[in-house]
């Protein structure tokens, strides 16, 4: 039993990431609708969207090259890989050692690198504009993200994610100012990385405000389904990464499979509140002008730096 339990947890998590991510996206949309006084399409609308797109024909631009066709598959593949690295339900994850926190950031960079190339591939101004903006935002959010992760890794003396989570979940509970700053930085970065308001608007198709949507404007059919699905998984993964790093209590310890139902239940509760929190931010703020994003991400970087300073000075 004990030999199989990590593998079982991994399969469970794999399925959870694949199939719970659209539900979480649906939950966020639902709450957003309620907050804005609209009627929602329900929790399962993202599944219906993906299903519909998978069954549609693909229309490719005339001069799209293999990069354009390959990108959706690669984006999906790297996101799935990230999904089996981040400890969501249990710390004892066999593949967690495959990549540490730095490699995890790099995995998301691969996906973004190729999406940006796909945006340039078709040769329209929209695609190029999206790529340029996305890469600009990324060049500032990635260092800030690494700084936030470094702060947590100083506390836990490791960059291995499951080890970081283990130290925070099962170590002595101390209120650490460094972690509070890191959390603040992480929230700002997660908003930028997953393309939410105030950095980007996932629901817009207005050329002045598009970032991510501009890059994938030419996608259709199953390619679009994969990209949308990967985007939902990314939102789910960033939320669960934040939960795992900063609020891991309740996550199952190594070899403790009986604790799993409790872990699932606690995760569902945390996701419930995380979704509401995200919607509160999104409805409370307006989208920023493109050239104010560097101030936004600069403050994220500053928070992460403050976390680092407070670690050395106070702890």
């Amino acid at each position: 039993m004990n030999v199989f339990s990590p593998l079982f947890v991994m399969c469970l998590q794999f399925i959870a990431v694949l199939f719970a991510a659209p539900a979480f996206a649906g939950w966020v949309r639902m709450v957003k609708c309620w907050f804005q006084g609209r009627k929602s399409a329900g929790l399962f609308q993202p599944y219906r969207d993906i299903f519909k797109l998978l069954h549609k024909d693909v229309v490719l631009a005339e001069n799209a090259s293999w990069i354009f066709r390959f990108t959706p598959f690669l984006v999906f593949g790297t996101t799935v890989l990230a999904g089996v690295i981040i400890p969501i339900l249990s710390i004892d994850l066999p593949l967690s050692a495959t990549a540490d926190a730095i490699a995890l950031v790099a995995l998301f960079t691969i996906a973004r690198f190729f999406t940006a190339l796909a945006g340039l591939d078709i040769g329209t101004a929209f695609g190029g504009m999206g790529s340029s903006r996305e890469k600009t935002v990324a060049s500032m959010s990635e260092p800030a993200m690494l700084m936030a992760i470094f702060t947590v890794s100083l506390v836990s003396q490791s960059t291995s994610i499951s080890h970081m989570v283990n130290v925070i979940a099962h170590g002595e509970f101390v209120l650490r100012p460094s972690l509070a700053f890191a959390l603040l930085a992480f929230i700002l970065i997660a908003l930028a990385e997953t393309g939410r308001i105030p950095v980007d608007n996932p629901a817009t198709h207005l050329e002045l405000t598009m970032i991510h949507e501009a890059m994938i404007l030419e996608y259709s059919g199953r390619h679009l389904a994969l990209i949308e699905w990967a985007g939902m998984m990314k939102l789910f993964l960033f939320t669960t990464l934040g939960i795992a790093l900063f609020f891991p209590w309740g996550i199952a310890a190594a070899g403790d499979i009986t604790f799993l139902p409790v872990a699932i239940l606690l995760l569902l509760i945390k996701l419930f509140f995380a979704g509401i929190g995200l919607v509160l931010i999104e409805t409370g703020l307006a989208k920023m002008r493109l050239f104010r994003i560097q101030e936004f991400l600069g403050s994220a970087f500053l928070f992460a730096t403050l976390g680092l300073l407070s670690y050395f000075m106070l702890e």
Partner: protein
Amino acid sequence: MSISPFILASSAILIFLSIPLLVPLFLRHQRLLINISSLIAAIASLLAVTAGVWTVWKGSTESYIILLGLPDLPFHLRLDPLSGFFFTVIGLLGFFVSIYSIGYVKGFLSHRPVNRLIVFYNLFMAGMFMVIIADDAFFFLISWEIMAAASYFLVMFEDEKAENRKGAFIYILVAHVGAIAILLSFGVMASLATGFENFGGYTFDAMRQTEFPIKWATAAFLLAFLGFSAKAGVFPLHVWLPEAHPVAPSNVSALMSGVMLKTAIYGIVRVTFDIIKDFPWWWGVIVLIFGLLSAVMGVLYALMQHDLKRLLAYHSVENIGIILIGIGLAMTFTSFHLPVLAALAITAGLYHTLNHAMFKGLLFMGAGAVLHATRVRNMEEMGGLIHKMPWTAALFLIGCISISALPPFNGFVSEWLTFQAFLLSPSLPSPILKLIFPLAAALLALTAALAATCFVKAFGITFLGQWRGHHTHVHEASWSMRIGMILTAVSCLFLGVFPTMVISWMDIIPEKLVGGSLTTTAGQFGWLWLTPISHSRASYSAPLVFLIILVVVLLIYIFLHTRKTAIHRGPLWDCGFEKIDTRMQYTGTSFAMPIRRIFGFIFMIKETVRIEASTGTPGHNIFPKSIHYRLRVRDRMWGWIYSPVADASFWIARKTGKLQQGRIQVYLVYSFVTIIILLVLL
């Protein structure tokens, strides 16, 4: 005499030195000359690689004295694991580039004979190997000058163009300022080794056995660092790179950027870790600061370029910076007697040296193939080349992924190791360093992210979209060029997927230099997991990352392609307007515009817009006849450092020029006064 690594290494050098002798025999058969000389050069490079790999493998040190040179000053040669490692780096890229050259050099045949290129190409290779194998200051400097002079003539190859002459002149000038500093540094160390009475101290062995007083050691180190920085292109001595690299033939640019800069890295490592050995912590911090400066400034300037080879040249500045970060960290850790951490940092630096040689070589070869095919260097006039040159595009993409530090390719491994070294800084005793080092790590992260942006631009504007150029005759690179690039790309992937093998191979170098080594074989699957310190500290498994991504991508592809849905091709979405043309695509300049705006204070930007109003309706600029837009981004260092120095030297030249009256009586008076002064003084 049995075969030893040293025999192989010296025969490789002798072969390179003798290839120029073939040139007079084949003056009339240029094609044959190119084939033969490139093949021999490839074989000699392989010999050098064998020698290098073998030396590092055995961990052996061989030294010989050759009775050449001035009387009483024989040449000392030595092949130890550190030189073996650099032999491997230079030989490996030399091998790939030599194969590439078979096809590439033939492209010049329609304009000019290539004799000069072949002569200096081989002298250049020989010079680099001689620098690495030298074990005394005298032979080292001779080799250094052979390397510099040969590369000067290579940059000057197409000397009818003014920009080639300018680039080559700036290069040789900076190289010689550096060479003077290196000469002075060796002078300081040699005089301390034996005093001024005899010349015995000029060997590196004599210097190794000397304990330098800290004051003089610092002087020697600073001079050596200045000298080697000039060669490596460390900010702010980097200005020659973007001038010389773009104008040199591309196979030469690949070698100059990929491996010639590394001889300077070799020099820094040799002087600090091997010769001086004992140094204070702030030397490491100096190296680290200049490394960070080069990395960040290099990548920011690279983003502003639209000349493909100039962009790559600025990226060499960036990557030399990353290598120096590793070396600077290693120096700091060594001075605090933390050998294992120092081993990690120096492994990161050296591994990046090897990686940069591979991917930068690949990128320059790819850029050469593009230039060869399109005959333009400005990427704003390219686009859509992925359809016309599918091989070159795919190979250039591999180079772009590697240099952008994306797993599972090689650039990621060395940057990951550098980050791990940074994160171990809490074990330093100094509180200020503890605080500063993670901030420095953030700068490295910024560099990596900007590099990825820059290569999206480089690849996207050059190879993707639609062709913006005027002529349509673009052809794919020839087979030998493709094979050279394929081999380099495969080695990029290998170094990225199997880093544990390479690191356990080169583990002997940190052991000899800093007295610590990495235990890469932690855990059950030694070759699978890269765990630099311990399993709970950090781990990265490149083979698994590669495998999982591959399997997932293949599975979804197979799963989705068995369905009935079809793929149609349709025209571009043009927002309902009549026709969109290729000039409406995003250009490199527009791609980099947000970065230009955010980091604008770093550059010297001159932007002018001139609107030509349509005739007949004066004052109506709403529908102008034409708009002229001009953007110039210049290096601030020109205005801050180089122009004042150049002006000052002209001023001094003018003032001293007044001494030359042109009349013999005045000169006689000068001699008379000099003699009187000497007589009074002595």
